[in-house]
């Protein structure tokens, strides 16, 4: 890939801006992921837990972030993907996923690119910080 071959530290990968999160998004994710924990689905329960309302599954937000990786490069190039959850995401928040190249290196005849990733909301509040390594 010529575009990937020219990658440099500091380059951003194409980001992803998502529409406002809805309870329907969580319901669909709960159904397909099997994680039907009440804090994601039951408004009254989430309030009892001290949250302002239901909170998104962390793995749903991570899955959005994963889309930026597989939109950018073929899935088979992905070697590792990790994240740290920084803050919960509430309904109505509009998330944005971003990534930037922090290293381009060689390992056993392969060229690898390391990315630092983040998900923020419309007010630039940090939700997730992450890392990924892809083979070029």
């Amino acid at each position, binding site marked *: 890939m010529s575009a990937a071959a020219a990658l440099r530290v500091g380059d951003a990968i194409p980001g992803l801006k998502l529409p406002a999160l809805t309870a329907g998004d969580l319901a669909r994710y709960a159904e397909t992921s099997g994680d039907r924990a009440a804090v994601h689905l039951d408004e009254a329960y989430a309030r009892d837990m001290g949250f302002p309302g239901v909170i998104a599954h962390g793995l749903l937000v991570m899955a959005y972030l994963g889309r930026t990786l597989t939109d950018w490069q073929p*899935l088979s190039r992905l070697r590792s993907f990790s994240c740290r959850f920084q803050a919960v995401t509430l309904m109505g928040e509009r998330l944005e996923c971003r990534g930037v190249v922090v290293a381009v290196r060689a390992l056993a005849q392969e060229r690898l690119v390391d990315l630092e990733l983040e998900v923020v909301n419309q007010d630039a509040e940090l939700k997730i910080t992450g890392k990924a390594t892809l083979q070029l």
Partner: protein
Amino acid sequence: MSDVPTLDRSVIGREFPPSFAVVEAEAVRRFARAIGETNAVFFDEAAARAQGYRGLPIPPTYVFSMKHAGSSPDSTLRALGVEGGSGKLLHAEQAFEYLQPICAGDRLCFRERVADVFEKKGGALVFIVLETRVTDDRGETVAIIRHTEVIRSDV
């Protein structure tokens, strides 16, 4: 509150019984739709094969859901005596290593163990790291999942 979860380092190394799952094409499509995917490789077998996959490949985080096969991720923690749902338990970190693509039709085995337990803030936060080795039906490791949960006793 009397339900403050406790956990000590004696559980490190504890292994859970293996679980098994087959990657279903329709489930991959449903998951891809639920996360807003539009990439044809996750929906269309022909597109997947054209890119060299033997079936629909799974989105990067789906292997985490497959491990739980319909049950709550808290079930492992419950087996260690840590109750979820108290607001004291939070998913802190999640990591994946990918060694081979996982595709629809694959039979996977999940072997989970407690990789680490450590404290921060003088014991107010207890972290537990659960590591799952995912193997295919030839016994080759296709992915490693690391799930870090934090138990807060300060709330």
